[in-house]
């Protein structure tokens, strides 16, 4: 809890640093990966010092992202179980999108959208790691049968696509929902924001402080 009465602590310093390590590595991976996925994006290799450098750097950045995600997943796993309130929230999804939502259920630390992003990444990132190692030239690929490499390269593209879509939604949701970005930059949100978007979580943290 912040000393300023109208602010609530949402993410501590370590969480924020790790989130941004994850975010930066994800964006670097998406840019260098897309560059090698479709010729329309090949120009993005210039950001990394050319095609060869993009190819060399991408897998190492991937390992950093995986480790960062492991840390995040361990920390937020327990807050991402889908509850009855989430299912009720989903029924109001159209109104929420239209900014007309009223009488929403009491949402905990994360809403269903955030939880879905989390679970998509829980599946996508380990798949990206495993398939990525299989197609990692020149170190690992020669050890695998060619049809497995062909399968891995296809699955790597599909998993990356799904993860990129999830992250586009995640970024947009953060921009759209005013007052959210400061949770990851400053670590705090306003009490009004907490009460409005995550009332069950707000009750929990204000109780903890009183004790």
């Amino acid at each position, binding site marked *: 809890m912040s000393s300023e009465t*109208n602010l609530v602590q949402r993410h501590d310093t370590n969480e924020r640093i790790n989130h941004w390590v994850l975010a930066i590595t994800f964006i670097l991976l998406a840019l260098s990966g*897309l*560059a*090698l*996925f*479709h*010729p*329309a*994006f*090949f120009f993005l*290799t210039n950001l990394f010092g*050319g*095609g*060869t450098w*993009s*190819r*060399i750097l991408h897998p190492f950045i991937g390992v950093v992202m995986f480790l960062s995600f492991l840390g995040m997943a361990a920390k937020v796993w327990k807050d991402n179980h889908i509850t009855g309130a989430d299912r009720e929230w989903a029924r109001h999804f159209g109104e*929420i*999108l*239209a*900014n007309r939502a009223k009488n929403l259920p009491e949402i905990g630390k994360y809403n269903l959208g955030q939880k879905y992003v989390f679970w998509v990444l829980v599946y996508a990132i380990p798949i990206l790691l495993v398939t990525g190692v299989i*197609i990692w*030239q*020149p170190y690992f*690929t020669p050890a695998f049968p*060619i*049809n497995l*490499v*062909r*399968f891995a*390269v*296809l699955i790597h*593209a*599909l998993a990356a*696509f799904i993860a*990129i*879509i999830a992250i*586009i*939604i995640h*970024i*947009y949701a953060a*921009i*759209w*929902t*005013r*007052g959210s970005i400061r949770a990851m930059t400053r670590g705090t949100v*306003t009490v*009004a*924001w907490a*009460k*409005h*978007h995550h009332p069950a979580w707000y009750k929990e943290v204000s109780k903890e402080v009183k004790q």
Partner: protein
Amino acid sequence: MPLQSLDITRRSATTTASPHQRQTAEVAKLIDVSKCIGCKACQVACMEWNDVRDEIGSNAGVLDNPPDLSGASWTVMRYSEVEPEPGKLEWLIRKDGCMHCTDPGCLKACPAPGAIIQYSNGIVDFHEENCIGCGYCITGCPFNIPRISKKDGKVYKCTLCSDRIAVGLEPACIKACPTGSLVFGTKEDMKQHAADRIVDLNRRGYPNAGLYDPPGVGGTHVMYVLQHADRPNLYHGLPKDPAISPMVALWKGVTKPLMSLGIGLAVLAGFFHYVKAGPNEVEEEETEK
């Protein structure tokens, strides 16, 4: 711009037309396995003309030497001792190397613009200065041919001596072959030559002799005359119906435009949602509560 670069049929990772004003005759190398004595003159000529020298390896107990293709060995002889019929031993010697497919899996898979070029004469050439070393061409190749060099991380394979052919010479291996097992010319002429050879082999007790010009890859610009064309696998696992793997076709086919479109639409959907609905703000009176 060298004239040779005006007869490009396809370039890797390029979605627009390549310069292809010039149309040259389709060429082919014909390898008559029944005439090959396994002398490796073609291997030596390849090394010499292309100035590539593989590391001296160790004897693996068989004649195959070097034991596999590599960044510096663009053609190798594959020796197979087989019994096509029980009790009838045959020593089948196949010169292995790039087949120069009409529908090249390497080119389809390559993400680097201009790293793989297909000329109108049918040659599929790697331009290593554009190669990024990702090995996708290896994933795409149905014949297991391209190799990443340990020296520079680029991928190499037979060029069909595109530099010699461009100036009217035959490939180095053809020039060196002492038995006439290797011949070179237009693809049409080579098919005719093969047909004559097959008639001869049929008369000599090889009723299944035939031409290996697999349609699954649109035909190739390196073709074999095989004594047992019904069983190409006898020849060190030459694939019977080679084709670009469906997984590679999917990965480098519809997924590329569809996923790119999907990503673009996701961004646009967000933008237009914002324009229509506006930000999701916490109302003032709530703040005061």
